[in-house]
């Protein structure tokens, strides 16, 4: 990805002085196989989107399983949904939206060359992401206490099909949470680069494509929240 650009930060050592006027104007972050910084950025964004499409299909498989089993056991699905903590899920939805806007602001700050703005917004993004995971921890702990984790200790009073709902709940939110952890690590690396003043109006590819990943993880949650937490809400508790 564009992160590798520093490998070629030293220009073109084989170019004789004066012979490569065009080369001399190259931005130090431009890799030699790109015509321009614009093309390099477009290629980075396209490459990230290709990766995100594979992520769409990855999560898509889980949503597919969700659709198949929900079609088969609609009642167990609605009842299982009512065991989830809507307040915690809702707070987490809002927390992720906050993290997305600070992420978008961080990219904007890179584009206008505000180092301070990038650092502040990236730290906020990381904090919101961490809040999400902390809330998720308490949610999971609550599920263990209430015997809602599939397996031998699952509440025997509940229909067996609800175990499938909770299995998918834990797999989908668990993999989503794993993506959040990866996102936070990614943002810590980007924060380090921003701290050093690596990004500016001419070069902000890494922060932009990392932002795309962050927003994607937010979008997955935008679908998980209504599909897991809210589907049985109208049936009452």
């Amino acid at each position, binding site marked *: 990805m564009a992160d590798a650009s520093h490998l070629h930060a030293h220009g073109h050592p084989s170019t004789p002085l004066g012979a490569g006027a065009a080369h001399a104007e190259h931005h130090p972050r431009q890799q030699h196989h790109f015509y321009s910084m614009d093309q390099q950025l477009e290629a980075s964004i396209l490459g990230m989107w290709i990766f995100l499409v594979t992520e769409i299909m990855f999560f898509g498989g889980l949503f597919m399983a969700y659709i198949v089993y929900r079609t088969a056991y609609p009642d167990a699905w609605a009842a299982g949904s009512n065991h989830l903590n809507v307040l915690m899920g809702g707070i987490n939805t809002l927390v992720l939206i906050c993290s*997305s806007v600070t992420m*978008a602001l961080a990219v904007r700050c890179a584009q*206008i060359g505000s180092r301070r703005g990038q650092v502040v917004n990236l730290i906020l993004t990381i904090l919101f992401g961490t809040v999400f995971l902390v809330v998720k921890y308490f949610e999971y702990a609550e599920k263990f206490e209430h015997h809602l984790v599939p397996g031998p200790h699952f509440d025997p009073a509940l229909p067996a099909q609800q175990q499938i709902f909770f299995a998918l709940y834990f797999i989908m939110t668990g993999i989503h949470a794993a993506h959040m952890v990866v996102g936070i690590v990614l943002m810590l690396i980007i924060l380090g680069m921003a701290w050093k003043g690596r990004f500016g109006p001419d070069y902000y590819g890494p922060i932009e494509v990392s932002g795309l990943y962050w927003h994607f993880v937010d979008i997955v949650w935008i679908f998980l929240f209504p599909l897991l937490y*809210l589907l049985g809400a109208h049936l009452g508790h």
Partner: protein
Amino acid sequence: MSAHVAKVPTLFAIFGALFALTILTYFVALQDFGWLNTPIALGIAVLKASLVVWFFMGVRWNTPLTKVVVVAGLFWLLIMFGLTMSDYLTRSWIGVPGR
């Protein structure tokens, strides 16, 4: 660099819309619309996701090629959902064992 820089009011307007739609999806879910509950919830989710993709992810200002890739990704997802459910939803049409 000729790339588009998003305006701060735009970003906060999208933020407000996402916040409002999250509240909306909660209160809508409390009402009983019969089979329409899920389509309504999904409609709101798709609208929220579109706002994120179009403005926060800036696909609006990306190249046509990137836009095609994004749409193709969603299209392939729908192919997976469509073909799989065309199997599961029609298995009961013929009364043979092992369906």
